């Protein structure tokens, strides 16, 4: 823990910048290409403005992408699965009937972010593109096998969301690219997902540890056919706990198995110590949350 973590001076005013609005994805991409590292994108701005107030970030140009139409949507078809536009607000995700019914872990994660006023304004794209190791939308979406659609002036590419996070605060976006859509395939039958988060103090805080468990069970709910376990805030990026997955994949559900998985997850996690918690505390929380999330996933009905 460094002094810099604890002592942060937040200025009353924002640093000066030039403001531009993008009306299309192509326009946004060409503006970002033109301004390069001097520009930042704003959608909700709930993270950006805070980091500008303590001068962590001082862009010369801010490109408003909220003015791009048709990036705020939630669409579902059985064939294509779920498609969420990058500008969709967290409260839309939290309240969406289709997400609550078929992808409930995603709604559950969205409702644990920040406070109502933040959720009403912040976007899923922002939560992912900030690429903090603790981003709450990341573990559930990675657990569901989501993909990120990224566009630039030449076209688009689609990337597994797991590969979208490169380092703390660093996403796979290159200069001139923006995230436009998150694609989530329809889960297999008998798939259950749970996301548990421990915040630093209260509901409003960043995760000290976040654990997403997505299990596909058999029709008797006795065996775990497949498992994805994703840990947040305990590594430079959201991480798949692959050894933990192997412990439970293809196994019969029983008491000892769950505890063994939880302990494996705690060992797999690679947290640092910071103002929100020590590494040891975080490992212990991983054990507790993995235990709880697996149990809830097995016991839940959707």
């Amino acid at each position: 823990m460094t002094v810099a973590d604890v002592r942060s001076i937040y200025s009353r005013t924002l640093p000066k910048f030039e403001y531009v609005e993008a009306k299309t994805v192509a326009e946004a991409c060409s503006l970002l290409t033109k301004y390069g590292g001097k520009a930042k994108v704003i959608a909700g701005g709930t993270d950006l403005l805070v980091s500008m107030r303590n001068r962590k970030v001082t862009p010369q140009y801010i490109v408003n992408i909220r003015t791009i139409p048709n990036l705020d949507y939630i669409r579902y078809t059985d064939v294509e699965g779920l498609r969420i536009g990058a500008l969709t607000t967290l409260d839309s995700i939290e309240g969406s009937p289709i997400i609550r019914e078929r992808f409930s872990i995603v709604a559950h994660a969205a409702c644990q972010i920040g406070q109502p006023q933040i959720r009403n304004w912040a976007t899923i794209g922002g939560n992912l593109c900030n690429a903090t190791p603790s981003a709450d939308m990341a573990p559930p979406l990675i657990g569901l096998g989501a993909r990120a659609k990224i566009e630039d002036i030449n076209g688009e590419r689609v990337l597994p969301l797991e590969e979208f996070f490169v380092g703390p605060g660093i996403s796979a976006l290159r200069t001139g690219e923006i995230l436009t859509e998150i694609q989530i395939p329809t889960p297999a039958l008998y798939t259950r997902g749970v996301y548990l988060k421990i915040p630093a103090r209260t509901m409003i805080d960043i995760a000290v540890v976040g654990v997403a468990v997505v299990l596909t069970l058999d029709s008797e709910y006795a065996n775990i056919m497949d498992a994805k376990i994703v840990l947040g805030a305990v590594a430079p990026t959201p991480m798949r706990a692959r050894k933990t997955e192997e412990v439970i994949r293809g196994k019969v559900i029983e008491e000892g198995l769950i505890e063994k998985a939880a302990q494996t997850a705690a060992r797999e996690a690679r947290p640092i110590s910071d103002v929100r918690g020590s590494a040891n505390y975080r490992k212990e929380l991983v054990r507790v949350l993995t235990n709880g999330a697996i149990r809830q996933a097995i016991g839940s009905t959707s």
Partner: protein
Amino acid sequence: MKVELKLVVNGNTYTVYVSPWMTLLDVLRNELQLTGTKSGCNTGECGACTVLIGGKAVKSCLVLAAQVQGREIVTIEGLEGEEGRLHPLQQAFIDHFAVQCGFCTPGMILSAKALLDKNPSPTEEEVRVALSGNLCRCTGYVKIVEAVLAASEERQ
């Protein structure tokens, strides 16, 4: 380089010329003299700056003024009825002693209004979640929650 901003606040249309780095909070307080909305932490945690944008509670310290072009905004001043009559929520806060220093109150009332407009009979848990973005250092929240629940009952 100033941005021309048209916005509708409490039913009135305003055109102001703002620097891009001004937040909605700055515009409401400094340009429009609507000082009911408070500047607390300025980092989006305390909720004293809460306003309604399109009926949803949002923290105005985290909104660039330029981003609300053409939007409908409601501040605490907008709750007043005919001839200065208080909104039921405002009256409930007074009746239930939910105001001490009053600094959090405008934000609390607007978050409560956003809740009741969407969910007219919330449970206590739902009220607490709806107010989880508004901090109060004076009251301990009990009276505030009581006031919101009372106001919701009165609306029935």
